[in-house]
């Protein structure tokens, strides 16, 4: 029964993630991505290897100030919080959800274009963003075929 509930919850989350890929709302895409990441870290052994010994602090902010989310990787786990954190390894400030999506996870990513157009502004160590981008892409590749 518990398995069934977990499966249902995951299915909902994948659907939400799939929907958010076409959404304009930054918070929805980012929150869904981070929540899904947290869950898949728990349920997927291979994916969990990405956490091993990884220390990283990410700060995501929207340019309009509406979204302030931090993701902190430490002690082989991932925490997500809606606040400003001290000394992030990288801060990613994005114009809107679409630009963030394009930056991190779009099938044809446009990282350089996003930065050149200043749709996304980063401050800090981009290597952390590259790792995050990989983990996000892995999720995208894992996404089950969902009914339309």
């Amino acid at each position, binding site marked *: 029964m518990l398995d069934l509930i977990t499966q249902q919850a995951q299915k909902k989350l994948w659907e939400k993630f799939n929907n958010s890929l076409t959404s304009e709302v930054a918070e929805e895409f980012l929150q869904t991505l981070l929540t899904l990441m947290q869950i898949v870290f728990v349920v997927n052994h291979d994916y969990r290897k990405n956490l091993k010994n990884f220390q990283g602090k990410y700060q995501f902010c929207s340019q309009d100030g509406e979204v302030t989310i931090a993701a902190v990787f430490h002690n082989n786990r991932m925490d997500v919080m809606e606040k400003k954190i001290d000394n992030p390894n990288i801060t990613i400030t994005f114009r809107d959800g679409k630009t963030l999506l394009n930056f991190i996870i779009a099938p044809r990513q446009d990282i350089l274009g996003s930065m*050149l157009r200043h749709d996304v502004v980063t401050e800090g*160590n981009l290597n952390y963003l590259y*790792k995050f*981008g990989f983990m996000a892409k892995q999720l995208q*590749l894992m996404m089950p075929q969902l009914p339309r």
Partner: protein
Amino acid sequence: MITLDDIRLKNFKLENLPRLKELRSLSFARKPEICIERARYITRYLRDKDDTNDSPEVRQARKVNYFLEHKRPVFHDRNLLAGTTTSKALGAPLFPEFFALTLWPELDTVSTRAKNPQKLTADEAKELNLEIFPYWMDNNVLELTRKRINDEKNPKAAESLRLFESLVFFIAAKAGCISHAVPTYAPMLEHGLTGLISMAAEREAAALAHASDDGNRHADFYRAVQISLEGIIKYAEHLAEEAAMMASVADDPQVKQEFLDMAKVCRRVPAGPATTFREAVNAIWICQVGIHAENINMAMSPGRLDQLLYPYYKRDVEEGRLDIGQAIELIGCLWLKIADNVTMVPEASEEMFGGAGTVPAITLGGVDADGEDAVNDLTYIMLRVTELLCIRDPNVNARYDYEKNSKEYCRRVSEVILNTKAVPAFFNDRANITALKGQGESLEHARDYAVIGCVELASSGRDYPASSSIMLNLAAPLEMALFQGKRPITGEEQIGPKTPDPATLKSFEEFWEVFKTQLDWLLEKAIALNEEMGRVHQHMMPSPLLSAFFEGPMDKGRDLIQGGSLYNSSGATHIAFADVVDSLNAIEQTVFVDKKYSFSKLLQMVKNDFAGAEGEKIRLYLKNRTPKYGTENPIARKNACNVVGHLFELYQAHTNYRGGRYRPAYWTMTNHAGLGGITGALPHGRKSGELFASGITPVSGAAPELSACLNAVAELGGECVPGCWALNIKYSPEGDVGQMSERFAQTIEAYFRAGGQQVQFNIMTYQMLQDAKKHPEKYPELMVRVSGYSAYFKDLNELMKDELITRTMYDLTNGQAVPYPGDKGGE
């Protein structure tokens, strides 16, 4: 002296050179694969074996030695030379010290991406993700620079870093590499690596005899040289063992013999002195592979191979060991080996760098140390190989001294350009030797210059020029001058100093001062960051192996990165030169001379991207009625000279961390397309997003007469452009190559006599390129000159393809530009 009966060597064709024909076909059929071998071994070494108490030079040497010891000896085909840059047939090696981690987001998709995929196996991707990349997250050049700046609490350098990371002001290229060098292999060929190791050992002992800090540092350097060169010898031994093993299992007697021959060569060289042409060629190649174990594969240029190899060629021919066909085959094998690697380009960078090779430059012809004609039989053999193979790398360049080299040589080079449609590029000995002498190089050394990468100049094996240190976007200070220190792309942020509103200025001279204020400010930022990164390189990435192939380090006991070379310059190149000059011209003529439009009106139009009917009317006026660089207009000539002169003075006033001067240059790779694509409208009638002109080339369509265009560029040459330039000229092909090469050669000579330093060509029409864009399958091997280097047209990004299509095309029969037919031309 030329002994060839036919300098064209037209009896030697791919049809009767089956090995080269097969290898060439293979080189086009191969798909690039990412090679993680170097990243794997240097990471393992640093993680498990590195002793941080060692000097930076010794740590680097041990790291490189460890990799070379473990590097797999492989033979992918029937090339006669042993050694490969990577473990793959066409490999993109990863250098995690620089930007390899940009590959991280696409580890699972790089093999299948739409544009220029690079194959990576699932196991390799896993190893990179879990084992290799995590080690480097905080340890590459860029992050160590950031840490250094933060630790020093250096706000000025922090501002420079921020500007660099915004990508739209300048590129601090040391984050990606220094490389860009021309070593000298003559001592290696004469003494063998064991000879060089013995010399280093003697000097180490002598340095240790002086018990001082300096003595110890020098001894450390000499020890590092020995350790790194021993790595190359180990690799050559492994090649010999593998070749012998391959011979033992080969059924075909010819193949068996070829492997036995390679095993024999690798047992002799590069450890011992080269005794034959073949040994010399293979020794050079194995040392090139060794250099790439230490330094990233970007513009590591073998240099004047026709001069270096000629004594070995001559002796073998005279003694009956070698004929011309065999020499062509060996040189062809070398060209194809040099092309065995590409750079790893993440999808995110395709827009800027897509299609670029690794640009190892070969330099042919010119004069010798005494100023006499240096063209020899091998020069013509190498030209013939270049003509037959017609491949992207190596980047072949022909030096020409119009007083000393023969007209036949000039015509032959012209003919090769016409037949390949793109290579080699032409370099003017008179102007370039003057430029290098202006940098304090002795006449003898300046005469021995070779081309690095795209177009940069260096005395062979004497000048460590870091020639790609800074790439400055000149449109940035122009926009900052127009908008009081702000740029449209960065919004309301005050970037540069707040200079006066241009609408309040009374003369063009006042605006010129404002422009210089912004330019000087930005240039200082770029230099400050280059200095910081240079110091990080000194600790993290010294080059004891490369130092062994330079004059200077062995005498000074100092690595190249510590100023060990005889000459120690840093290079800075500039993007949007022609567009900025034309904008200055438009402002001067329209606002201050003719008073046709006020500055505030002009600014309003630029801000609005010339929107609306009025905007379009003004734009067309600015585009068609204002002075253009590339013509004889005196305002245009004055402004071009002033920009070049001012940049020269600015850079020369700075001394770099190695004690050398900064040298300005004008080549753009593909950055003129990428940066043009994101820059707003400019005062010369350029709309937002239109591409910048390449290198030092006038804006497309702006220079209708060929001779005026060449003269306008040529008068900028000489002392003020010591880093050289890339001038791109497109000619419409003619039916009779013989007649065209005559006119072609005459035009070159006139341009060089006027002072032009360099020129490169595309011999193709607007329509042909439009067709190639539309039907890439019809042009799988079409090679084009971009801005200093060659590329396959099909591999370029869309912006670059458009830039090449719209470049002004001249008809050499009448010297006039052929009007661009518009986008419908290819239909």
